[in-house]
C-alpha cells in the first residue's frame, strides 16, 4: 500500500504548484499594493474599491425590478456580482429543466442498449460537441445569431426581425445553457441509470401513478445527480468570462470579465485579486449550501 501511495505524489506536486501556489498568490495580491517608490505594502484598497459607494449604478436585476419594484443604487461591482448571479442562476435553472428530461431519455436508452449489448448512440451524439473547443462552439453561435446571421435570415423570409439575439441577457444565457448543459445531464443520467427498474415497478405496484412515482421515488433517488449537476453548471456559469466576452460583444460586464479587465486592461492586480477572492468565497459558500442538502449520499454523480 505504501508504494501505491507514492503514485499520488505527482498529483500532489501538481496541486501544490498549480492550485495552491496561485491561490496563495492571489490572496497575497489582494491584500497588497505597490507604493510610488515600488515598495509593497499591506492594504484593503482592493476590497474598498469593490464596495466603494463613490460610483453607484441602479441595480440591474430584471426579476427584482419588475416583480418587486426594487430600485437600489449599488456599487458598480455589486451590480456586476448580482448580474452574474442572476444569469448563472437562470442558466442553471434552464439547464435543469432541459437537462433532467434529456438525462431521463439518455438513461432509458442506456438501459435498453445495455440489454442489447450495443453502445448508446444518443449519448454519443450528446457528448460529441464536448470534444470541440468551447471557443469554437461559442463562435459558431455568433454566426447563427448575428443580425445578419443564419437564424435572422431565416426569420427574414417570414418577415420577422431582425431580432437582437446577441449582446444581451438572452445571448449570454443561451451560450451558457449550450455550453454547460452536458454538465447537468451527465451526472443526472448516471444516477438515473442506477435506479433499479424494479423499484419503479414497486412504486406502481403500491398504487403510485406516474406522477407520484416520479415525485416520491425517482426524483428523490436522483437528487444527488441533480445537486452535482447544479454545482457543475452554476460554478462555471458564475465565473466564465469567455461567453459574455464573445456573446456579450465585449461591453457586457459579468464578474469574470470584470476580473479579466482588472488584470489585463487596468493592470490593477489588487482589485482583480480582491474580486477573485470574493468570487471564490461566494462560490464555495453556495457549494456548501448545496452539499448540505445532499446529506451523506454516496450514490452521487460526478461531483459531490
Amino acid at each position, binding site marked *: 500500500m505504501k508504494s501505491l501511495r507514492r503514485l499520488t505524489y505527482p498529483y500532489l506536486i501538481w496541486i501544490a504548484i498549480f492550485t495552491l501556489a496561485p491561490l496563495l498568490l492571489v490572496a497575497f495580491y489582494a491584500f497588497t499594493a505597490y507604493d510610488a517608490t515600488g515598495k509593497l505594502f499591506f492594504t484593503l484598497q482592493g476590497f474598498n474599491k469593490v464596495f466603494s459607494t463613490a460610483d453607484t449604478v441602479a441595480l440591474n436585476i430584471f426579476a427584482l425590478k419588475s416583480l418587486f419594484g426594487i430600485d437600489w443604487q449599488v456599487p458598480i461591482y455589486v451590480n456586476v456580482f448580482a448580474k452574474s448571479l442572476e444569469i448563472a442562476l437562470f442558466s442553471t435553472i434552464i439547464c435543469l429543466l432541459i437537462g433532467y428530461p434529456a438525462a431521463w431519455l439518455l438513461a432509458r436508452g442506456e438501459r435498453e442498449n445495455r440489454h442489447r449489448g450495443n453502445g448508446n448512440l444518443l449519448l454519443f451524439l450528446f457528448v460529441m460537441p464536448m470534444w470541440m473547443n468551447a471557443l469554437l462552439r461559442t463562435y459558431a453561435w455568433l454566426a447563427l445569431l448575428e443580425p445578419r446571421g443564419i437564424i435572422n435570415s431565416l426569420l427574414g423570409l417570414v418577415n420577422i426581425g431582425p431580432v437582437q439575439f446577441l449582446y444581451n441577457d438572452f445571448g449570454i444565457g443561451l451560450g451558457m445553457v449550450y455550453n454547460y448543459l452536458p454538465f447537468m445531464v451527465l451526472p443526472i443520467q448516471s444516477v438515473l441509470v442506477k435506479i*433499479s*427498474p*424494479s*423499484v419503479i*415497478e*414497486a*412504486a*406502481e*405496484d*403500491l*398504487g*403510485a*401513478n406516474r406522477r*407520484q412515482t416520479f415525485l*416520491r*421515488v425517482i426524483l*428523490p*433517488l436522483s437528487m444527488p445527480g441533480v445537486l452535482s449537476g447544479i454545482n457543475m453548471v452554476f460554478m462555471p456559469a458564475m465565473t466564465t468570462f469567455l461567453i459574455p466576452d464573445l456573446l456579450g460583444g465585449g461591453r457586457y460586464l459579468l464578474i469574470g470579465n470584470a476580473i479579466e479587465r482588472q488584470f489585463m486592461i487596468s493592470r490593477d492586480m489588487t482589485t482583480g485579486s480582491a474580486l477573485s477572492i470574493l468570487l471564490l468565497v461566494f462560490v464555495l459558500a453556495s457549494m456548501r449550501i448545496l452539499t448540505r442538502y445532499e446529506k451523506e449520499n454516496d450514490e452521487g454523480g460526478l461531483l459531490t
Partner: protein
Amino acid sequence: MLNWHHIKRQQATEPAASAAQHLSDSTGSSHIIEVVGINKSFGDVHVLKDITFYIRNNEFITLLGPSGCGKSTTLRILAGFERPDSGDVFFEGRSLLDIPPYQRQLNTVFQRYALFPHLNVYDNIAFGLNIRKVGKDEIRTRIGQALKTVDLEGYADRWVEQLSGGQMQRVAIARAIGNKPQVLLLDEPLGALDLKMRKEMQIELKDMQRSLGITFVYVTHDQEEALTMSDTIIVMKEGLIQQIGTPTDIYNEPRNAFVADFIGESNIIPGRMTRDFAVSFAQRSFACIDRRMSEDEVDVVIRPEDIILAEPSDQTISGQVVSVVFKGVHYEMMVETGPFTWMVQSTDFFAEGASVGLTFDPEDIHIMAKSDYSPDRRTAGSDPGDTPDDQNGGDSW
C-alpha cells in the same frame, strides 16, 4: 435433489382430472383470478403459449418451472407490468388488461426486494398507504401489524441498507401486505436467501398466507419449495402449462416425463401397454393400477424410493450396483440392468458390484402418455433437466 418420502401415495386419480378442474371455464365466484388463453412474445421468442388457468380465492398457488419457462412473465402480466399479446385476465370477473398496475388490488413481493433505498423501513411500508391517503393513525396501526406479521418489530427506524437479506425480504413482504391486497404475488422471493433462511421463510410464508386469509401466487424454480407450501402447483415449461394439480398429484401422478423428472428424482422407462392394469417394460410384464391409454407406447415412472431391492430371482429385474452414495437417511444406489440404469433409494445397503433384484408394487408404477419430453424422444434442444440457477433467467424481465 428431493426425496419426498412423506408424501403418501394416494389412490390414483386420473391425472388429467385435477388439471381439468383448474382449466375449466366455470365462473364460480370462488375463482378470484382467471387467466384465459394468454400469449406473449418478446421479439421472436414466444414465451407464453395459450396459458389458461384459474386461481381460487385464498389458495396458495405456485407457478413452477425451470428458467425461461414463462412463470415470471405470467406473474408480471397479473401484476400489470406486461401486457399479453392475446388472451385475457379476469379479476373477480372483470378484465384486468386495461387497468394499470397502480389500480390493481394485487401487490407484488419482488425477486430482489425492490425496497426504496431513500426511505427507512417505516416509510417503505407506509409508501402505499400514504398514496392511498390512509389516515396517520391507521397507517401506524397497520405498519405495526405488518411488522409483527413478518417478525420485525422494532425495525421501523432502520434504513434499508442496514438490513440483512432476510430482513429486507421481510420488509418487502410487510410492505406488500400492509396494503391489504386480496392477492399477493411473490416472484421468487426467497431466491437470494441462504438455504436455512429459505426453509424458515417457507414455513412462515405458508403460515402467513393462512392467517392473513389472502391468495398467494408464488413463482419459483425450486420444486421442493413448491411442494412444501402450495395448495396448487402449475408446472410450466417452454411457455406451456405441463400440469396443474395439488403437490401430491404432481408428485405421484406426473402427466409427462418432464414433470416426473422436474419434480423429484425419477426413473423414466419406455414401456408398452396393450391392456388395462398391465404394462411391460424391461422385457417383463408388470401389474399396475392404470388403464390403457390411447397409444400402446407409454412412459413408465418409478420413484427411486419405491423400488424394492431383493436378492435376484425370477420375480425381479436383476442388475448390478454400480455406485453407492450415503445420503444420511438412505443410500442412493445406481443399479445397471442392461440398457437402463436405475436410481434406487433404500435404507438397505448393497455394496458396489453386488448383484441385486428390483421389484415394484403395482401402485408404485405410474404410467404416462408419451410426450416431447420422453427420454427416447428427447432432442438436444429440449432438455427437461431442472436448472437451479434461475436468478437471471430470461423470463425475469
